[in-house]
């Protein structure tokens, strides 16, 4: 097993864990954490593909990973803000309670 394959497997595993977390957790915060895991799995892929790819001096993978970390941070900040806004109304962060709209 080459090292690249190993990284990819780990990344896929992290993605799956994040996915499972996002699907099963009831707290909005924990779901957010799951999604962050999924994003980081992708970042790991970028780094791995860059490091073992044919064009390592182009830095594309690193650039992408750095930008995506920054964006994920912004997203998390906004997400927590929205969770707060919801909390102010319904006094809960339980996703199962947020179902006043359906159909």
């Amino acid at each position, binding site marked *: 097993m080459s090292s690249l394959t190993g990284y990819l497997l780990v990344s896929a595993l992290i993605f799956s864990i994040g996915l499972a977390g996002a699907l099963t957790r009831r707290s909005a915060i924990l779901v957010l954490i799951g999604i962050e895991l999924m*994003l980081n799995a992708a970042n790991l892929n970028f780094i791995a593909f860059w490091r073992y790819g044919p064009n390592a001096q182009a830095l594309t993978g690193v650039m992408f990973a750095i930008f995506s970390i920054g964006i994920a941070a912004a997203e998390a900040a906004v*997400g927590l803000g*929205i969770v707060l806004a919801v909390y102010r109304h319904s006094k809960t962060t339980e996703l199962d309670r947020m179902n006043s709209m359906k159909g």
Partner: protein
Amino acid sequence: MNEPMTPSMIAFSPALRILPEILMTLTGVLVMLVEAVLKPRTSRKPLGIVAILGTLAAIAASVYQLFLPAGTAFFGTVQSDAFSVFFHLVIGCIVLVTLLISLDYFEGHTSFVGEYYALILFGATGMMLMTCSVELLMVFISLEISSISTYILAGYRKRSATSPEASIKYFLLGSFATAFFLYGIALCFGATGSTNLYEIAKGVADGASPLLLTVAFGMMLIGLGFKVSLAPFHVWTPDVYEGAPAPVVGLMSTAPKAAAFAVLLRIAYGAFGTAIHIWMPLVWIMAVLSMTIGNLGALTQRNVKRMLAYSSIAHAGYLLVAFTALAPMGIAAASFYTAAYAAMNVGAFGIISYLSGYNEARTSLSDFAGIARRHPVAAAAFAVFLISLIGIPFTAGFFGKFYVFTAAINSGNAWLAVLGLLNSGVAAFYYLRLLAQMYMVPVEPPREADTAHARPAFILAMAILVLAVFALGIFPGRILDLARAGAATFSGPANAASQTVPVALLRR
């Protein structure tokens, strides 16, 4: 990557390639700064007017870009060409009209409206940037700029219970889809060694790791399919549209979709143009699913905003039908449909925002009974938008569908067109029901919201949209020419760079 040699050999700053985005950003920053020094309880209208002026400047800048030779800038990350200009104009006009509609919407209901305008401007920056990105990193960043802004905007009726709920639903599911998108990009990078669309196109053409590329495209399709609410990634749409403020729904059901469709066009036809066999069946299936689920879902829906949400799913499906057509014609048809759909849908939500007011006083179908008597002009405008959504001739909706289905049939996808036509037949039913409610049900006692009077800005916005619906329906020639010019830029980077400027379009 160096600047491509332009035929004219006139040196110009690469910043001109993103001039509209720069203008939008600066206006947004200005609005936020001024907001900070304004007194808390004063009207925020001046900020709205500043935002409108900034948007007008950005639209003008987009038109100016038509005179530049098509080409890339900033290390090949952005490319301004007729295609990007087309979508810049569509998005710019949507934002302009949304700002006009919003000008009086929040008056007296909430402070911090300055942030609202700024968010719209920043979101629009992201959307515009999406349409001219030819590098997936740029696509991802601009997609996130636009998404994060719309997440917040969806929750802007802070005091209502539904609005924050819509916001969090949109946010969580949106980030969820984004994760797939990012993972897809990562795989694409792994398969081709680049995130530049033209480099990827080369890799795809070489047939490098087809398996990885298939999965990569599938994951990117998931992310973008979510943004444009294609089935089976549509589930969020009805809830979010119901909860978000009506002017915002008008914006977010059109502008981000236009941008995401532009990206999808660039990825599908541009980067994966030689791997049509991978994505054509997927697109085929998703188009059928979206049309059917959207229309059937709307059929028994009693909440008007939800009904239009389902209808927007169906319209995304019609638009996707264009993707099954061969390159130049399909791209042109899809681009035109985006514009047509934007005009009628922003209009429909604009009217809803006017008739139901900030408190969303009218939500169910029966609340619209007899509107024609009480608000004859608003009802007439609504009727125009609905008729266009049905697809009656002389309106944008008809020619949009006509082009899309013509393109599909010309490329041998007759069955898809048949399914699409059947669907639009079913769709007539629920639009008509709303129309009948407005015109054919006796007047109900007046409601609180009926004291509202149309402000000049709102009337101007509706006039623009009604005119656009008819203009696109009766004389679509010029905008169609621009769409075709945009489609022609897809032949490749070299071609795009040397492509002659379609200035002739403007002189016609």
